[in-house]
């Protein structure tokens, strides 16, 4: 099966193409078709996973070139190792759930088929990203998931907020991709290949200067920052909640945003080679996590709380991977790698569960504002329990998935006290805000009556996937429990074997932290023994800071977007006024020069021509007297000339007159003769007239 793993990727693409070109108008058929395709992919993924479990360390890789120019090759290929196999199953299983769920959720939407086409395209891109064996192919699918995310966020594009959000998401992730591209360029430049295995071998062997590795790793990490919504590029993810809820469940919590984490995990060898880069990764991770958690504390939009929670959890994973890099680079053992990937898997299940539960709630009450909900436990017999299971899992309640994976992360931070403290603090906040959400939504009294009245349980297509995910939210983490000898860890651990980690102390501490968070939420929102409003009043500046999401949107608008737009307009003005002005100025100058030329032409050149004409006319008025009209006069003239020439020739006359003056004398003589002859002829005329 493993050698045909590419089919897992291609089936959703086939589904996309079929829906777009053939099934566009047959809504139910297209939905069923795409579910069928992704379900087949799921089955095949499970088969691949089983096969991969079978042969440890013997991974499958294959590739073919799409560009070959001498040494420069661009290839598409697949690499099946435990990490890939695990991600394939996660993506396809959640994908199947989401597609089934969407049949109910998207019912009555005018673009029902299109939604399934987009989802299929997304799954294709995501699976391609997972299966890729080189940086180039990863980047291709990296961008394609960006496109599908754009399409899905903007699915209800009539809403201005959705249209804004999809653009923001695409552009923000693209900013991260800048770093990614630079990283890729450096990889190509220093390694001459994009293939993961070859690049890792070269970097591992020290073929690339360490300073370069740091820059290169940070470049690649930039891509992850954008895609996984890490600080400072996290601002798009909450806005991305404008998309339909199933989209939030799969794209913006479970899979695509986890792609950044996956990328860091996949390229861990680069980070291992640079402790500095790994430290950057870890710090960014913890900072993001902390910031997002604080924001989530005070929000009231159910999906946005979940979105900030997602950012926070992704920060967790990134931090774990970063610390793993730091520790490994310094020669220590660390459970960070599988802590990160483990949490990636468990988080995918419980977070998509939470989102789809939230979608079910929204479907029921038609609002996102938790302040308008309350007491829904009675109305939603299925949704409420599974949602609570998800919340328990994310809060780290003992024996749920989240409990085990979070413990691994906490265990990773041992040796870095600051990180440990912050990690526990975040865990506490997570438990608190998740349960604040639960208590406000499902318990207490209904706060807005008409919302409560109309609330109803969702159809089966929506609830059944929730059951499956709830099951996974509890038991997916059991693959990593000590009793199984940390099965997940030894499976995915990069062939490094098993390292002792989270112990009982660890478990107890984090249980206490999680439970106390839940307890505080209980006290504040059910018992109301502590007033939330009073606390908000007391820490007003802090509350405002969190409520306004640390003012990131405003800062970016003022510091980046507005300046760029203004600069663009300046440039346009510059283009019109200066550059084009120079061109037009050249034209004006040419026209002016032409005017000057025209003046010269008129008065000097033409003047010279006219002057020549004038001189000729003057000469003519004198010389005209030669034209007597009498033949014999001409003959006499020529005879005289001949005689003179003869005289000169034979020097008979010994006249020594120079030629020029002689010519003048000759002309004068001729003129005199002609004038004389004129009178003569006039006399003759008179005579002849007289005769007549």
């Amino acid at each position, binding site marked *: 099966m493993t050698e045909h793993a590419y089919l897992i990727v291609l089936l959703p693409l086939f589904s996309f193409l079929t829906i777009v070109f053939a099934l566009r108008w047959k809504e139910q058929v297209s939905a069923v078709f795409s579910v069928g395709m992704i379900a087949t992919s799921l089955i095949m993924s499970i088969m691949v996973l089983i096969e991969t479990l079978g042969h440890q360390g013997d991974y499958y890789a294959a590739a073919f070139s799409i560009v070959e120019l001498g040494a420069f090759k661009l290839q598409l290929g697949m690499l099946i190792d435990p990490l890939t196999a695990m991600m394939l199953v996660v993506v396809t299983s959640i994908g199947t759930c989401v597609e089934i769920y969407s049949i109910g959720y998207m019912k009555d939407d005018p673009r029902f088929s299109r939604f399934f086409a987009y989802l299929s395209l997304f799954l294709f891109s995501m699976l391609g990203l997972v299966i890729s064996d080189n940086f180039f192919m990863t980047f291709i699918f990296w961008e394609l998931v960006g496109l599908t995310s754009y399409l899905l966020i903007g699915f209800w594009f009539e809403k201005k907020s959705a249209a804004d959000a999809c653009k923001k998401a695409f552009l923000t992730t693209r900013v991260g991709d800048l770093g990614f591209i630079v990283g890729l360029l450096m990889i190509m430049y220093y390694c001459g290949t994009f293939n993961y295995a070859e690049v890792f071998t070269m970097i591992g062997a020290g073929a690339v200067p360490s300073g370069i590795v740091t820059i290169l790793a940070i470049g690649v990490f930039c891509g992850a920052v954008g895609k996984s919504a890490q600080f400072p590029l996290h601002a798009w993810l909450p806005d991305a909640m404008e998309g339909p809820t199933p989209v939030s469940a799969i794209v913006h919590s479970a899979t695509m945003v986890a792609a950044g984490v996956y990328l860091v995990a996949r390229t861990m060898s680069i980070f291992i080679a640079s402790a500095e880069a790994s430290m950057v990764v870890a710090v960014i991770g913890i900072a993001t996590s902390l910031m997002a958690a604080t924001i989530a504390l005070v929000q009231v939009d159910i999906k946005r709380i979940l979105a900030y929670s997602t950012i926070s959890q992704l920060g967790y994973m990134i931090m774990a991977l970063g610390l793993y890099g730091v520790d490994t680079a310094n020669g220590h053992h660390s459970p960070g790698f599988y802590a990160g990937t483990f949490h990636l898997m468990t988080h995918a299940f419980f977070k998509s569960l939470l989102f789809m539960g939230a979608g079910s709630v929204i479907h029921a009450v038609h609002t996102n504002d938790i302040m308008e909900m309350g007491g829904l436990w009675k109305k939603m017999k299925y949704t409420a329990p599974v949602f609570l299971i998800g919340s328990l899992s994310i809060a780290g309640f003992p024996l749920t998935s989240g409990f085990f994976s979070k413990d691994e992360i906490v265990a990773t931070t041992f040796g870095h006290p600051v990180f440990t403290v912050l990690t526990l603090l975040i865990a506490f906040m997570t438990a608190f805000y998740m349960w604040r959400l639960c208590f406000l939504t499902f318990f207490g009294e209904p706060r807005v009556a008409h919302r409560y009245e109309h609330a109803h349980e969702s159809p089966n297509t929506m609830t059944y996937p929730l059951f499956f995910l709830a099951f996974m939210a509890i038991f997916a983490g059991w693959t990593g429990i000590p009793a199984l000898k940390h099965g997940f860890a030894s499976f995915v651990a990069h062939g490094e074997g098993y390292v002792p980690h989270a112990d009982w102390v660890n478990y107890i501490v984090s249980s206490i932290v999680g439970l106390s968070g839940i307890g505080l939420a209980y006290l504040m929102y059910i018992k109301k023994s502590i007033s939330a409003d009073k606390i908000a009043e007391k820490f007003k500046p802090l509350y405002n800071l969190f409520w306004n999401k640390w003012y990131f949107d405003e800062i970016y608008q003022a510091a980046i977007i507005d300046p760029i737009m203004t600069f663009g307009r300046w440039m346009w003005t510059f283009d019109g006024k200066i550059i084009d002005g120079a061109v037009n100025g050249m034209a004006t100058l040419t026209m002016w020069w032409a005017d000057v030329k025209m003046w010269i032409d008129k008065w000097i050149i033409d003047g010279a021509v006219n002057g020549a004409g004038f001189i000729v006319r003057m000469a003519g008025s004198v010389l005209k*007297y030669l034209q007597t*009209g*009498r033949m014999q006069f001409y*003959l006499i003239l020529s005879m005289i000339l001949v005689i003179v020439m003869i005289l000169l020739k034979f020097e008979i006359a010994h006249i020594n007159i120079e030629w020029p003056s002689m010519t003048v004398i000759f002309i004068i003589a001729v003129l005199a003769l002609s004038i004389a002859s004129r009178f003569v*002829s006039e006399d003759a005329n008179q005579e002849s007239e007289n005769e007549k």
Partner: protein
Amino acid sequence: MVAYLSVAAVLFSLGLFGVLTRRNIIGILMSLELMFNAVNINLVAFNKFVWPGELTGQLFSLFIIVVAAAEAVVGLAIVLLLYRNWQDITNDNINVLKW
């Protein structure tokens, strides 16, 4: 040689005088013919005495006779036309080319 040339010179001078002084165009034409003939005599004489073996001079004079005949035809035709237009062939009165 001198005798031939002298006759030719006399003949030429007569022609020249005639051309310059006659007022009747036909007279002028006749005088022109005289000058042609003077030239012909010269050519034949020079040929005879300077390059005795050759016929260039004779040839040329034959040419001139032919051209002179043609020229006389053209000239007389013009005269005829002049007469038709002006009823006059006195060259003094035909001065339309005067400025």
